[in-house]
């Protein structure tokens, strides 16, 4: 037995999960378990209570409401990859999830777990930044909505009170003929990215009308390349234009760690922004 002793709770509704969070100190939520279980096994976290969401009803699945995709927090990565709504409305999500862990871990990992764990290099937070997603959390007093830009408070710390539960993620999907590209660099396939880039483009008459570029792994939380997004508007969708964005990406503030310097991350960000935009542009031009 690897984890330190804890008391296990198995709520069946989001309300019960929230009241368990509110009434127990030092409680941890167990979603897919693909990050929490290793941390429990290594005793990096030693909670007194573990609240398992796997039997909670009504917080998984994908729905389409008024051009919004609404995704339950307990929706597993494998189900996102296989979901027809996600594949047709937000095809960048299945493309990015190919990079996340391995198929055995994707069978358990949830979108809500990934967003709450908030690893700086994780793919799902990077995507939700690109979409300006809204996160719905439930607390003892009711629900509140948090735009993604306000979600990361610090390194791996989401904007979530100890008695709050993330229940839903929603975002407005892009036009049917938008282009998309997801690129990342990792030492081994399935590892966390050193840098990851998500790019979305809309083009009209050869000119870019809308762009979103999100960079994961470079800093402590995903960063939107707002300056480059603005610079692209009105320009021709071609490689010279993408170079402008790539040059801006090379200037972003980035972190150093024991393995990779910040300069290396900046170089990677530039290269990957270029590649992701080329991919997005090709896909727009084809449709």
């Amino acid at each position, binding site marked *: *037995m*690897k*984890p*330190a*002793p*804890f*008391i*296990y709770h*198995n709520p069946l509704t989001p309300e019960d999960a929230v009241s368990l969070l509110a009434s127990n100190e030092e409680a941890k939520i*167990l979603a897919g*378990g*693909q990050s929490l*279980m*290793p941390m*429990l*096994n*290594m005793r990096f976290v030693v909670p007194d209570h*573990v609240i*398992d969401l*796997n039997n909670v009803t009504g917080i998984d699945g994908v729905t389409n409401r008024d051009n919004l995709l609404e995704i339950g927090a307990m929706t597993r990565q*494998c189900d996102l990859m296989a979901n027809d709504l996600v594949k047709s409305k937000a095809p960048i999500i299945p493309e990015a999830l190919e990079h996340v*862990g*391995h*198929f*055995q*871990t994707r*069978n*358990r990992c949830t979108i809500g777990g990934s967003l709450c764990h908030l690893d700086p290099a994780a793919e799902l937070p990077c995507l939700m930044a690109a979409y300006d997603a809204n996160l719905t959390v439930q607390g003892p007093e009711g629900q509140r909505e948090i735009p993604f830009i306000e979600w990361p408070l610090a390194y791996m710390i989401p904007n979530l009170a100890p008695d709050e539960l993330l229940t839903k993620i929603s975002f407005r999907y892009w036009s049917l003929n938008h282009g998309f590209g997801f690129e990342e660099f990792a030492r*081994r*396939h*399935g590892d966390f990215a050193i840098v990851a880039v998500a790019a979305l483009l809309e083009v009209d008459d050869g000119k870019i009308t809308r762009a979103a570029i999100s960079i994961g792994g470079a800093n402590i939380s995903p960063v939107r390349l707002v300056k480059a997004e603005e610079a692209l508007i009105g320009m021709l969708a071609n490689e010279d234009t993408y170079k402008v964005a790539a040059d801006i990406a090379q200037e972003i503030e980035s972190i150093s760690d024991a393995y990779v310097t910040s300069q290396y991350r900046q170089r990677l960000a530039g290269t990957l922004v270029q590649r992701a935009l080329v991919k997005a542009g090709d896909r727009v031009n084809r449709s």
Partner: protein
Amino acid sequence: MPDIREIQVSVNGEDHSAKVETRTSLGDFLRQNLGLTGTHLGCEHGVCGACTVILDGEAVRSCLMLAVQANGHEVTTVEGLAGEEGELHPLQEAFWKHHGLQCGFCTPGMLTSLVAFLRDNPNPSERDIREAISGNICRCTGYQGIVDATLEAAKVMQGRV
């Protein structure tokens, strides 16, 4: 006070009822409570893939699940792959033929992962197979025998050999 629950789990088609401490992983439960030591625990943090079992038809890491979470579910371990008379699963047969193992530590995870994979991808390319086992670490074989075995097992299972 240890936190103990009673769970009912179907393992390899057999129903089990057991009392477990809630912090027990599914992998430890299979090995220690049920004596099914075919499931191997390597890294115990989800990286090596040796402990992979099939939960309700899907390959999952048994070190990254609590036994109590398997309550009411069906688990298949490597012991459950062979037929009733002990005849090897076509994938096991192919592993034997193509020398898809040396020390054998990773083998249970390879087999359970690939059985689930072949069900969803009955006609995989070599690349698909290498991607499927990218989360299963083997330090002996260099993977070549494993890939060859899986390619052949796919053909056999489709009746193409």
